């Protein structure tokens, strides 16, 4: 038993020895239970225990808890110890409470009382003990109880340095628990600000070190308020960097002057962009250069502590250089320095160098410099012994990839994938798929890469990846033949991955005809090849293959009977899987009953997929939030359909070209029974039903969750989702009456952590002062995880206006500030009051409001962007806010409307006429009103809706 210093507890030492001597787990539990029973009886017994005994038993309980056992008593005794006049007893009481009391204990009130007493003690050791307890527990109650005392201790002139240090960090903890703990006025200013910032100038380095942590947190909450800290931080940093290691005495760590403080100051500066003040900027750059220079000096010690501390400062300086992203010279120097580390002996340094370089690769100034190290990085990916380092190398290769090196990097990643660790394969597959798509100039290369991915790491190829290759092949005519040929070859491998069967099945079903001329890949050969895999596949893949088969019936009449036989087989027609059964029977009927024309129309080539962000990128972002640069989007060229593309809208196409099929889809043909009609829908949407959203909708929903914000949608409606991202959803419900509007804005937190500093503000309010009176009610600054809050806005139209106001929603997610601008659905038409009138008065006013050259009229002629459907047009017009007037226009196809725009000062009468021309697929929209700007705005608003 080692000697015990201070005030030892023999009984405790004996107990610990006993436990250590236990030969088995059972023996240990037995010994512990005996001790627990003993302590319990002591605590319950009538003999009053003295302080020493209480302390000893509480300490034993603590030890038992730390061994991993549950403790459900002793808390009260520990709280009693807090008010002991002996420091040793008090200290054990506080320790027990810090470890065992959770934040919502009923004892908190008692504990807080003891803390309050100790904070007032004249002995700084007692004060610090109390603050350690606050910092350890940091509950909301404590934040409320001590939110004033602690910062006061921090800034008061007669507080001792050690107490100031504790107070700074204690306050920081309370601030994390409850951001409102520091009282601020409406501008976010606080009486403490200046005094807290001045702590950066404190004589005592320990005080400065503790204070920087606090200031960093305060700055994150309110950067503007604490902006003064920038110049203080820079001058402090400069003094440290130029100090010799003897100057700072005990704050020099292994010959490195104040590494902790330096790193914290460098971190603090990363909350701001490059200093605006030229003097400060120059001084900061001198510091950064000095740190880079020191990296080249010979080491002052061989100890790893020396190099760690020195490099910790260096890496933080490089982070700041990257963050500021404004000094090309420093960026390139940083890159060279990291390049040296790539071949350092220390694994830790190689890891960190790869990680930092990733950030450098995303800066335009240093991207090229990073590329010089490509070979070493590829070697790291292949040769590093530690998977976490290899992972960093993969990340860096992904970040440094561009048009010039993409083929090489993708090839190297593919090679490595064959032997890569299972833990990183899935992510690598995503990365390769994204790079191949992003930098493909030749799409045959892209197709090869993806098929290779499936071949090498089929299990790790997620749905998104193979959906994506299909989307791209469908959108690009130039690669379809090649894709068909390549999948055909790939399927000939004796064992091929199920994902390959899926891609192969889909592509051959669409484009098998392009290679059918070659006898080696004649229709029957294609079919037999696919069908040879059928029995090895999951029901999902089989369902896909059945769709391919019915497409084959259309493409290749010669295999029709073979396929019909297959569909008739019991294993399909009577499959236990309902989906297979349904497909088999419906496809069979379809092939039997309908004419070849109908079949051809139903099984038309898939239309192009709409242009969108790659769904794979969304998956990667989800996997590694914050590690995929937000600005990164795939270049559009890859998604645009090539010029000779097929019809845009499948359904439309039916309507125009083939009346028979139009009937089929119109649900009224005598040929098609109800099953057939639903069947036809399935076919149009090929995979739609099976995958609950399948190829098209599956990826669309991912895409939608990125950003589907379209303010135009709200011109003709009042409720819905205004904005949605992975973090938040903004919904709106509004109602308008004459010149007044009420908006309910709903903010939903989609994440699992609270969104901090949540606030909304009208952007450029000065633009609106004379037009709209907008009152937005205040809102809680915290949006809890998964919660939704409502904000009310009252809007009054003062005079006519154009466009619509925007609010900025800002919040901090996981320490990162976020900003979203959302257009409010408050367009001028919302203030319409519908007006009834008869034909006579309508035309009288119509004429009155303008002859052909009258400025009060506005007219637009535009192409239909949606099918010209009378019902939906009527819905939109009534949603627009005017009264739809029937039986007024002599031409029944035309629409006329009347309404009054209400502003505070006047009422503006408004008439409208919309004339569709079906043949030309065009509309002519005319708006007449008593005020020209209103006519123009109303016309503009409505013109894009049809």
């Amino acid at each position, binding site marked *: 038993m080692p000697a015990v210093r201070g005030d030892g507890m023999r009984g405790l030492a004996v107990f610990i020895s006993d436990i250590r001597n236990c030969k088995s787990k059972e023996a240990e539990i037995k010994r512990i239970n005996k001790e627990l029973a003993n302590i319990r009886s002591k605590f319950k017994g009538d003999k009053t225990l003295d302080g020493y005994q209480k302390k000893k038993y509480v300490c034993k309980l603590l030890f038992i808890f730390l061994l991993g056992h549950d403790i459900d008593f002793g808390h009260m005794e520990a709280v009693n110890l807090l008010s002991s006049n002996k420091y040793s007893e008090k200290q054990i009481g506080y320790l027990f409470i810090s470890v065992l009391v959770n934040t919502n204990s009923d004892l908190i009130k008692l504990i807080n009382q003891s803390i309050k007493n100790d904070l007032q003690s004249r002995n700084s050791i007692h004060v610090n003990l109390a603050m350690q307890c606050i910092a350890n527990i940091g509950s909301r109650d404590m934040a409320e109880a001590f939110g004033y005392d602690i910062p006061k201790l921090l800034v008061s002139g007669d507080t001792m340095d050690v107490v100031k240090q504790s107070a700074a960090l204690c306050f920081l903890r309370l601030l994390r628990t409850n951001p409102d703990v520091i009282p601020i006025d409406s501008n976010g200013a606080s009486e403490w600000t200046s005094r807290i910032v001045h702590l950066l100038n404190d004589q005592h380095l*320990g005080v400065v070190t503790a204070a920087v942590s606090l200031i960093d947190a305060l700055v994150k909450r309110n950067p503007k308020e604490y902006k003064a800290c920038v110049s203080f931080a820079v001058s402090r940093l400069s003094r440290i960097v130029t100090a010799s290691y003897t100057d700072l005495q005990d*704050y020099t*760590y292994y010959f490195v002057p104040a590494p902790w403080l330096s790193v914290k100051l460098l971190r603090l500066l990363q909350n701001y962009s490059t200093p605006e003040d030229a003097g400060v900027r120059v001084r900061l750059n001198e510091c950064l250069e000095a740190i880079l220079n020191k990296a080249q000096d010979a080491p002052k010690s061989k100890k790893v*502590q020396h190099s760690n501390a020195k490099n910790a400062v260096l890496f933080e300086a490089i982070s700041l250089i990257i963050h500021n992203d404004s000094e090309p010279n420093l960026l390139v120097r940083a890159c060279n320095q990291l390049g040296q580390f790539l071949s350092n002996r220390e694994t830790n340094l190689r890891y960190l160098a790869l990680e930092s370089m990733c950030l450098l690769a995303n800066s335009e100034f240093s991207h090229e410099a990073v590329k010089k190290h490509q070979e070493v990085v590829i070697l790291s990916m292949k040769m590093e012994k530690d998977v*976490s380092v290899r992972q960093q190398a993969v990340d860096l290769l992904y970040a440094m990839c561009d048009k010039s090196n993409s083929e090489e990097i993708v090839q190297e990643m593919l090679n490595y994938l064959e032997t890569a660790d299972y833990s990183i394969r899935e992510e690598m597959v995503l990365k390769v798929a994204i790079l191949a798509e992003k930098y493909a100039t030749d799409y045959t290369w892209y197709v090869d890469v993806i098929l290779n991915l499936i071949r090498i790491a089929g299990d790790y190829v997620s749905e998104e990846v193979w959906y994506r290759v299909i989307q791209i092949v469908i959108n690009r005519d130039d690669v379809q033949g090649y894709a068909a040929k390549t999948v055909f070859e790939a399927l000939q491998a004796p064992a091929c991955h199920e994902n390959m069967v899926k891609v192969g099945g889909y592509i051959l079903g669409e484009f098998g005809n392009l290679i059918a001329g070659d006898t080696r890949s004649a229709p029957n050969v294609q079919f037999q090849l696919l069908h040879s895999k059928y029995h090895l596949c999951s029901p999902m893949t089989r369902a896909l293959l059945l769709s391919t088969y019915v497409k084959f019936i259309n493409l290749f009449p010669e295999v029709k009977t073979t396929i019909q036989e297959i569909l008739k087989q019991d294993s399909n027609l009577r499959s236990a899987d309902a989906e297979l059964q349904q497909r088999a029977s419906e496809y069979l009927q379809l092939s039997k009953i309908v004419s070849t024309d109908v079949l051809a129309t139903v099984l038309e080539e898939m239309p192009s997929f709409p242009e969108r962000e790659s769904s794979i990128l969304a998956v990667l972002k989800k996997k590694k939030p914050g590690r995929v640069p937000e600005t990164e989007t795939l270049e559009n060229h890859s998604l645009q359909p090539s010029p000779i593309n097929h019809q845009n809208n499948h359904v439309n196409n039916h309507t125009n070209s083939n009346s028979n099929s139009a009937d089929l889809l119109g649900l009224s043909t005598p040929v098609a029974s109800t099953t057939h009609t639903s069947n036809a829908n399935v076919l149009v949407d090929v995979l739609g039903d099976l995958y609950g959203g399948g190829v098209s909708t599956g990826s669309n929903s991912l895409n939608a969750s990125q950003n589907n914000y379209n303010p135009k949608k709200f011109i003709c409606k009042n409720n819905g989702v205004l904005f949605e991202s992975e973090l938040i959803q903004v919904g709106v419900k509004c109602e308008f009456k004459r010149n007044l509007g009420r908006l309910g804005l709903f903010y939903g937190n989609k994440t699992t952590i609270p969104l901090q500093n949540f606030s909304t503000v009208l952007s450029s309010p000065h633009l609106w002062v004379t037009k709209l009176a907008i009152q937005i009610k205040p809102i809680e600054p915290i949006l809890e995880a998964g919660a939704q809050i409502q904000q009310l806005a009252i809007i009054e139209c003062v005079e006519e206006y154009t466009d619509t106001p925007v609010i900025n929603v800002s919040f901090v997610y996981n320490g990162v500030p976020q900003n979203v601008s959302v257009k409010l659905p408050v367009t001028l038409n919302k203030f319409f009051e519908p007006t009834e009138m008869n034909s006579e008065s309508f035309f009288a006013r119509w004429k009155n409001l303008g002859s052909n050259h009258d400025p009060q009229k506005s007219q637009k002629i535009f192409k239909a962007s949606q099918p010209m459907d009378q019902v939906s047009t009527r819905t939109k017009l009534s949603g627009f806010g005017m009264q739809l007037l029937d039986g007024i226009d002599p031409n029944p196809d035309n629409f006329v409307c009347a309404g009054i725009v209400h502003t505070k000062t006047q009422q503006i009468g408004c008439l409208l006429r919309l004339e569709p021309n079906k043949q030309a697929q065009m509309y002519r929209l005319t708006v007449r009103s008593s005020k020209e700007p209103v006519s123009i705005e109303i016309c503009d608003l409505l013109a894009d809706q049809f």
Partner: protein
Amino acid sequence: MHFMLLFSRQGKLRLQKWYVAHPDKVKKKITRELITTILARKPKMCSFLEWKELKIVYKRYASLYFCCAIEQNDNELLTLEIIHRYVELLDKYFGSVCELDIIFNFEKAYFILDELLLGGEIQETSKKNVLKAISAQDLLQEEEAVEGALKEIGLL
């Protein structure tokens, strides 16, 4: 810093300090998971690993592993040196520290840690100042002990 764990090569937890509140169940789960992960790593591997949203920094001293969880953008190398400074402090206090010292005097190990780190942030980096604070505490205790002894034999 979110938490610090000390555990032995046999996987026994010797000290735990949490700077972010979690229910006991979660703490146990995290501890178990990390001990297994770290013990499975080879000596030459790098001292950092990504773990959920956090970064783990660990180092082995003799039979003890010191393991800290920090945020993504915290400084890894300097976290290693926080561990080292803590080991130095323990070493100075106990006089060439060993695992047994920490087992038998776990409360002291906590007190020293509380002087070095507060609320997960470094409070005092000077070795001298931390030791000064600890010996001031010890002095108070010894005075109390002497006082108690004198009282017992009736001299006070």
